């Protein structure tokens, strides 16, 4: 079975999360910038003649499509890397995915999801592939 993980968290945590995911072999992903709010009510900003409330705050949404067996490890990794402990840390959603088709080759399902050195290859004893990353503090 194939799943989609959709994680919404703080923008400043993106690099940390990406780095932690590469570490466990999650290579393919996409990211969108989103705005929203959960229990945190937004922030007050000031204009020249008074203040206004921005209740939809910027976050990033990270999407990963992966095999069932890798979901728990991935969720755990994201949850730890994206956490600050303050209100507004975000949420992770998991959905079922019916099928995956790689446009270039026409591969489907599990085959369309595997990369050289990814989490599945690692589980089958494959060699890790170094992903070029700019890790900063």
């Amino acid at each position: 079975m194939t799943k989609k993980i959709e994680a919404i968290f703080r923008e400043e945590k993106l690099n940390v999360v990406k780095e932690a995911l590469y570490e466990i072999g999650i290579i393919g992903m996409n990211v969108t910038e989103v705005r929203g709010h959960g229990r945190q009510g937004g922030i007050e900003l000031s204009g020249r003649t008074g203040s206004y409330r921005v209740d939809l705050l910027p976050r990033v949404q990270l999407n990963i499509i992966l095999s069932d067996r890798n979901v728990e490890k991935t969720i755990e990794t994201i949850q730890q890397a994206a956490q600050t402990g303050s209100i507004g840390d975000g949420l992770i959603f998991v959905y079922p995915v019916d099928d995956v088709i790689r446009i270039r080759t026409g591969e489907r399902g599990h085959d369309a999801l595997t990369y050289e050195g990814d989490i599945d290859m690692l589980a089958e004893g494959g060699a890790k592939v170094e992903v070029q990353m700019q890790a900063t503090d």
Partner: protein
Amino acid sequence: MNKTTALRSMKWLRWVVIPAVVSTALLFASPAYAQDPDPIEELTRGLNTVWILLTAFLVFWMQAGFAFVEAGLTRAKNTTNIMFKNLVDFVFATLAFWAFGYAFMYGSTASGWIGTSGFFVDASLDDVVGVPALAFWFFQLVFAGTAATIVSGAMAERTKFSAYLIFSFAISAIIYPIAGHWIWGGGWLWTLPFGAGFRDFAGSTVVHSVGGWLALIGALALGPRLGRFTRDGKPIAIPGHSISMVVLGVFILWLGWFGFNPGSQLAIHGGNADAVALVAVNTNLAAAAGGLVAMVVSWLFVTKKPDLTTALNGALAGLVAITAPCAYVTPGYSILIGAIGGVIVVYGAILLEKLKIDDPVSAVPIHLMNGSWGTLAIGIFATENGVTGLVAGNSSQIIAQLIGIGAVSLWCVATGMILFHVIIKATVGLRVSREEEFKGLDIEEHGAEAYPNDAVGSLGVAD
């Protein structure tokens, strides 16, 4: 004062003055007016006041140039903050230079080290360089404001607003005026017994090196922005948010420089006109040469593509470098001085990166390195207006220039270290929190974004 040259040929003035004299004589042909001031002097005073105020207004406009360059070269989330710092620079400079700065810089000297009269400037002061003291004060004020505003760029995107207020006051009230007194106030550097004494026509050292040194000390005290270097020390470029703003800012600065340098002649009558024309032409030539050379050097050896911000920084580098020697060199040497400035700005920025110093707008290569280079260049290339350098067979001028560069450097490093490391760090603290730096200084320091997002904020239409 000392920036005036001795050339005072006034031949052309007769076309203005003779009709004026004749009409005055016809209107007031009474003996009582015989004791009145000479109409030629009156006209000269008026003309020079117009010149000094007009060029001062151009230099004031450089504040807008700095604001746009610095905002354009940094990220959108810090735009309100950097713009605000540019505003407070001029606000503080105006008030501090009125109360103390002018007196420390141009007051009667205490052994050549500091001025001691003329606090809280008003109209009771005597004429300076043949114009009202208030006009002269205003001209000097806009220079003080320029020195202050150089620094905000190098310290951008991570400096606390409150810390910046303390800095901005200190540079305009104390650091800049005292260094300025040694040179333009007729202090000990001006009267050095080498060559003509230390010379800096319009402020490569007085304004730009002073600002540049404080920019360097400030950037070092802060440390690099988060994300500027990888954990293994590899530099990562942080692109600015608007190249259009940078281009506009540079052209505003370039225009302002036509006030900065030509205005520093402090007079326009007679032979001053020739000097002013030379200064204007030299200023522009050096800027063009700096822009061209920086573009070519970086195209060939660094980025491998023509890079716009590098070329713009090259033009600014040429302008800073020619600021000290613009009245003392020929147009040909101006091109050479600007061209070398263009090389310095490219490799200076690379050097800073190697040293892990984060200067978001390259203020240090532009103002400090080229300020020092331009000041030194007088000792090498000077041939005009009573100052001679190595090319004219005079090897003593360069000694005066080196002493001046060294003395001002020591002063700025010492006061900068005390200011940033002792005074500011012990009181309000210098750098914002890690979290604030990520979110941007606009939201955390000012609670106001520069570019609010109307669609998804709650700014929408209420029914």
